[in-house]
């Protein structure tokens, strides 16, 4: 029996169209737009001004608080201006626009492909390097990694779980990274273990990626500190709480952090970024992005400079198909539909999905037939049909009692509803309101 989480979960069509495509470099764009808020927490503060010359890897915005992250230039050139443009949320966000000139890197960065496996660093030195490099969670949540490595007082990490699940349909960036950068990911994993002072790590991978499982198992032969855990394919297994449950059987308490059960979860992409940050002195200036869709000419995995406009990637993947109806930043279950093609790739962009017009429209909503599928697929043990109704009727008390704040917005309920009800839309609304009410009560 393969491990997986309980309760709930779904298994949508995987559509991993780009799984066999090696990671390519699409070329450097003419202009990049680097938002100062690419992570959870306080936005970073720009330290360059209009007209400044910058190199690749140069700090351009420094961390704006404890939960925040440094941001570095992903290109060399001149700062054109500091302005706002719409990002994937649809709102205009502040960012730094840089006109590209050449490709000149900071001298301190090791840009070779050579593997640097050895290290002799203390926990503090590793965390410091990660902080400097502006590494954040690359699975999509973009929580600053260095903050995760410093648990709150009284709590101690016991295990590290590296997330190679990639449960979102279509996305293959983590899969490709595991196949092409397995050694680097393992070094990154060891660095994270050292930083957290733990001696056990698990790498969780779903069994639809047998090649990655086999390769990593082969690489860790002899060692017993890192263990590869093969998981049954089930969405949302890449969710932090679900992955911990699948690997350890433990449930993170309602409203609590993974550290409450002694676990810290990091994405494989993050482990790779940690390797580069510590061993290569390379800040987080590029990431792997899957560009895919049923009508896309060449579904691809690209190594992309942060700040590259989405349009550049779409062109590199064979151009925009005629029948495109919706463009999603991220996967089809949790990604955001973007409003225009100038939206930049940020640290949290794992994929760009082009959906056909016929796939893009929602179907007509009819009455709830109380089939209870939303209840049985909810990985958090909630009652989505009820939370939707109370949110729709603005009954925030019952919404809070129904533990609406535990919703992880995985979308399994809306996906599965045979009446096509907009369950998650209303639950999101309710979460926003209930969150506000709870904060007001506290203050």
């Amino acid at each position, binding site marked *: 029996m393969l491990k997986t989480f309980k*309760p709930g979960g*779904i298994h*949508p069509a995987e559509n991993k169209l780009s799984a066999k495509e090696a990671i390519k470099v699409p070329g450097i764009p003419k202009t990049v737009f680097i938002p100062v808020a690419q992570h959870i927490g306080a936005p970073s503060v720009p330290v360059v001004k209009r007209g400044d010359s910058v190199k690749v890897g140069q700090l351009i915005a420094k961390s704006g608080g404890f939960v925040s992250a440094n941001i570095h230039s992903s290109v060399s050139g001149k700062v054109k201006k500091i302005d706002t443009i719409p990002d994937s949320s*649809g709102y205009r966000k502040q960012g730094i626009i840089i006109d590209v000139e050449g490709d000149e890197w900071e001298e301190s960065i090791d840009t070779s492909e050579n593997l640097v496996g050895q290290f002799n660093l203390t926990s503090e030195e590793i965390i410091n390097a990660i902080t400097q490099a502006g590494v954040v969670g690359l699975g999509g949540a973009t929580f600053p990694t260095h903050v995760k490595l410093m648990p709150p007082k009284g709590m101690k990490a016991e295990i590290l779980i590296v997330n190679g699940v990639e449960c979102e*349909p279509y996305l293959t960036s983590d899969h490709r990274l595991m196949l092409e950068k397995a050694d680097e990911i393992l070094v990154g994993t060891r660095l994270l273990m050292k930083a957290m002072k733990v001696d056990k790590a698990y790498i969780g991978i779903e069994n639809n990626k047998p090649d990655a499982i086999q390769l990593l198992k082969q690489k860790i032969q002899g060692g017993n500190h890192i263990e590869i855990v093969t998981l049954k394919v089930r969405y949302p297994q890449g969710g932090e*709480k679900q992955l911990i*449950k699948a690997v350890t059987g433990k*449930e993170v*308490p*309602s409203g609590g952090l993974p550290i409450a059960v002694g676990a810290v979860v990091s994405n494989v992409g993050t482990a790779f970024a940690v390797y580069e940050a510590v061993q290569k002195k390379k800040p987080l200036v590029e990431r792997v992005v899957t560009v895919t869709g049923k009508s896309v000419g060449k579904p691809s995995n690209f190594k992309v400079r942060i700040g590259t406009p989405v349009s550049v990637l779409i062109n590199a993947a064979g151009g*925009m198909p005629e029948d*495109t*109806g*919706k*463009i*999603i930043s991220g996967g*089809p*279950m*949790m*990604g*955001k*539909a*973007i*409003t*225009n093609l100038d939206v930049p790739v940020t640290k949290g962009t794992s994929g760009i999905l082009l*959906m056909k*017009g016929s796939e*893009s*429209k*929602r*179907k007509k909503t*009819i*009455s*709830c*037939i*109380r*089939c*209870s599928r939303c*209840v*049985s697929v*909810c990985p*958090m*043990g*909630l*009652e989505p*049909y009820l939370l939707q109704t109370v949110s729709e009727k603005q009954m925030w008390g019952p919404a809070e009692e129904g*533990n609406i704040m*535990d919703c992880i*917005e995985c*979308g*399994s309920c*809306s*996906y*599965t509803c*045979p*009446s*096509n009800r907009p369950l*998650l*839309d209303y639950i*999101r609304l309710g979460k926003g309101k209930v969150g506000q009410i709870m904060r007001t009560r506290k203050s």
Partner: protein
Amino acid sequence: MSNLLIVSPSPHIHSEDSAQKIMFRVVLAMMPALVWSVFVFGIDGLRVTFIAVAACIAFEYLIQRFLMKVEPVITDGSAIVTGILLAFNVPSNLPWWIILIGALVAIGIGKLSFGGLGNNIFNPALVGRVFLLISFPVQMTSWPVTIQSGIDAVTSATPLSFLKEGIKNGKSISELAGGLPNNIDLLFGNTGGSLGEVSAILLILGGLYMLVKKVITWHTPVAVLGSVFIFSGILWLINPELYINPVFQILTGGVMLGAIFMATDMVTSPMTGKGQIIYGIGIGLITISIRTWGAYPEGISFAILLMNAVTPLINTYAKPKLFGGYK
């Protein structure tokens, strides 16, 4: 690019399943029992089913269009399910106009008066059936004999009413045993009764299909059948001359039909597995109580309707376990 992009919140994909597909799976699951009823009761079986289905669809359309003044929704297939279930619950020789009344009550009062699909508290087909049973007791309980029996009679008693009469007249079970069908006949449907209740095995077949297709879960049918079996078993152990054996109880009357097709109705049954088990046990208890001590020989319809009424209460208490809730 001239086309505008569609922007909507996640998720951006859908399971492709629909309420309509679920309803048609239920219809498909009832087909074996329907075909068998035609085999057993002749063309009359088809006549009753056709009238009931057509009437349910027609009433749904007319009431929505002219009384509720909303856009009629009859394509969801739920009226077809109600129609077939209603037909399954009446004798095959029921006059057409009684069927029409049943359909009107089922759809009009049982379903649309609550607001239509998904909002009804009681199983519409059972509302119709119980209304007819109370209003037309003679027509609703004169059962045509099966074609296979070869007897040239018009009506016969169902095994349960034969048993009830006998016990009331002071006879013991062993004295009555000769007049009762054996379990094999009951299993394969070689006996009198309502259209859809005659063959236990074909109903089980339909139930298994729905289980595989995830239209239903095991909780409700297993809880109903289990509690019928256990409670009647306890009575049987106490006095086998007064109380019939539990296998007979499960195979007769509408227990199988009720447990698999009526109690599992999504709209009127609880949302969680835990709740469905409580609900199913309640149905079994009430069914056996009515059969044993009540005025009617059969009790599953009343039992399901009573437990339908308790469903919202069950939903309030039988909550799913919160992830990380530690209770």
